């Protein structure tokens, strides 16, 4: 579904990603972990199409197409979704209007009929309930005045509405208390399907207790230095990221 090959990315001449490889198959959850500044969020931003990054080498294909050639909105319509680490406030635009525009843009792209206002509202209420969000939020401006937890929950709600085939969660757990974390994780788990892939970017192992990954990758200094199953995340929790400087062998030694 998503193939990242030897991706090298720089910002203002400074290399951030220095050859990242990632292969996400439908139905799988990949966790990307790493210390601050390792390039995790850059990876998420580049995949979603944010401007300001220079792609120096490598390629990314999404469902067999060149992802990097697509405008951000086309990526979304093709089924890519990024849950933002810092969801943006958009004063003056209600959540309802915003999501309906988004959903209908995606539906048009897929050759589906636009969803009428009434149907949309029913659909939204159905998706919003399990996330513990007050439906009144739909009438509020996008993310405006939302607490950190509300914003993150709302990202998951949007994901549920837009039904992507690949969801990237960028530090969705940061700033969440344990109760909110559980709600958000439950929401994400409810969206796991055989034809949907996830890339879960996180600094902490804690989230992965609730969203159990199939693969765990460790990103450090712009490259993936270690990949493994979920036990890798547990080791990271135990040993921290300090071993990276000494190379993967030291972690391997520690794991023994």
């Amino acid at each position, binding site marked *: 579904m998503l193939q990242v090959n030897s991706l090298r990315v720089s910002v203002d001449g400074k290399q951030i990603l220095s050859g990242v490889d990632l292969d996400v198959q439908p139905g799988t959850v990949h966790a990307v972990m790493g210390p601050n500044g390792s390039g995790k969020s850059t990876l998420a931003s580049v995949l*979603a*199409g*944010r*401007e300001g990054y220079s792609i120096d080498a490598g390629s990314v294909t999404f469902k067999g197409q060149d992802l990097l050639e697509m*405008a*951000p*909105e086309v*990526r*979304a*319509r093709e089924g890519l979704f*990024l849950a*933002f680490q810092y*969801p*943006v*406030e*958009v*004063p*003056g*635009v209600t959540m309802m209007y*915003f*999501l309906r*525009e*988004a*959903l209908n*843009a*995606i539906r048009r*792209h897929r050759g589906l009929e636009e969803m009428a206002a009434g149907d949309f509202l029913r659909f939204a209420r159905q998706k919003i309930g399990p996330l513990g969000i007050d439906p009144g939020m739909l009438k509020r*401006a*996008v993310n405006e005045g939302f607490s950190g937890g509300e914003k993150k929950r709302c990202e998951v709600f*949007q994901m549920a509405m*837009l039904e992507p085939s690949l969801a990237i969660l960028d530090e969705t757990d940061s700033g969440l208390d344990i109760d909110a974390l559980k709600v958000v994780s439950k929401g994400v788990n409810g969206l796991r399907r055989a034809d949907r892939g996830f890339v879960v970017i996180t600094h902490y192992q804690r989230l992965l207790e609730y969203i159990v990954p199939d693969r765990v990758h460790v990103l450090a200094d712009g490259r993936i230095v270690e990949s493994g199953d979920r036990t890798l995340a547990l080791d990271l929790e135990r040993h921290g990221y300090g071993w990276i400087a000494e190379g993967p062998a030291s972690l391997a030694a520690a794991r023994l």
Partner: protein
Amino acid sequence: MAAVIQHASPYLERFGARAAVSGTEPRWLSERRELALERFLRLGVPTSRDEEYKYTDLRRLSDGRLLLGPVSMGNAREPAHLSGQAVAARAGDGMALASEPRAGVSVRSISEALANDDGWLRAHLASIAGFEGHALCALNTALFEDGVVIRAQRGADCPEPIHLAFGAGNLARHARVLIVAERGSRVRVVETYASRGTYWRNAVTEIHAGENARVDHVRAQLESEDAFHTGVVQAEQRRDSRVTSFSLSFGALVARNDIGTRLGGTGCDCALDGLYAVRGRQLVDHHTGIDHAMPHCHSHQLYKGVLDGRARGVFNGKIFVRQDAQKTDAVQSNKNLLLSDSAEVNTKPQLEIDANDVKCTHGATVGQLDADAEFYLRSRGIGAREARHLLTYAFAADALDRVCVPSLRDHFEALLMARFTPGVG
């Protein structure tokens, strides 16, 4: 002002021609007009040498050709949204309007009102909008051929908007309106200015809000983008009255609006709001003035501007708080959105406060579309163009919400959206 003396004769000719036609005018009005002409000839058409016109030089209008010459205006499409709503008074070439939308509320031409005047008109017409120091107001006062008088008698209530559509024609070029809301009455007036071609329109509206009266005034300037529009709205308020003004300015190559009110009694409330949206080489200039002359009055101002291309915007908001005006509460805000790198705004609050127990806040911002918000919208599948549209609309929404007539608000919103096809980022 050499520029004007040089070009005085066309104005004098027009004044003479006008006076010949309206020869039956009462003496008090003729006297005011003569005084006004004299003031205009002394002050001249404003240039950037005048601090009040620093960014809006009208020198090129000084020969009066575009105001006084043969009519070069065409009919523009009428705003359809208002048809069927109350009175649609066409203040165009002819001035055949006489109606009573509600008991106690009359809409008449000035000439008719003068013919039936019992001395009432004298207290208001050409006395609210001072022309002593205002050349363009003086010019209109000297030259207006006819106009509209709206009078709401004591206690009369007319919630339906009275629509005055100023289109093409000589008479509409010197558009003149007087709105008098007597004690406890309520009236809503919408003025639209729209035409085609290259011309100069110079309009004046005077508003009197009596004790406990309410006047809602909407002014939609949708002139041809080759035109020049100068306009004055001046209100005077008695105690416990409320005046709201909304100034929409989308048209004209150069537009200058002077909008003010004098809070002349305790407990007055006023809201001067507006939205301007310009593009290309348009210039829009709003000068507002609120005179807090008495205590316990509240004023609120929200002006928003959207500027594209090489357009320029000017906002100057004066608030005077006189010595007696304790417990004044004045809020002023001017926010601007620049859609292009070449657009420009000059915004300036001007507060003169002589009282010591007052609350006055003001703020001005000039910004561009939020790139993060744009990316956020696009990352959900919304196209680049739609995203910019949506953000532009969102920017203007709270200003539009201050338009008191819902159907008009929607119409203005549609006009705004149609004006801008922001470049794909």
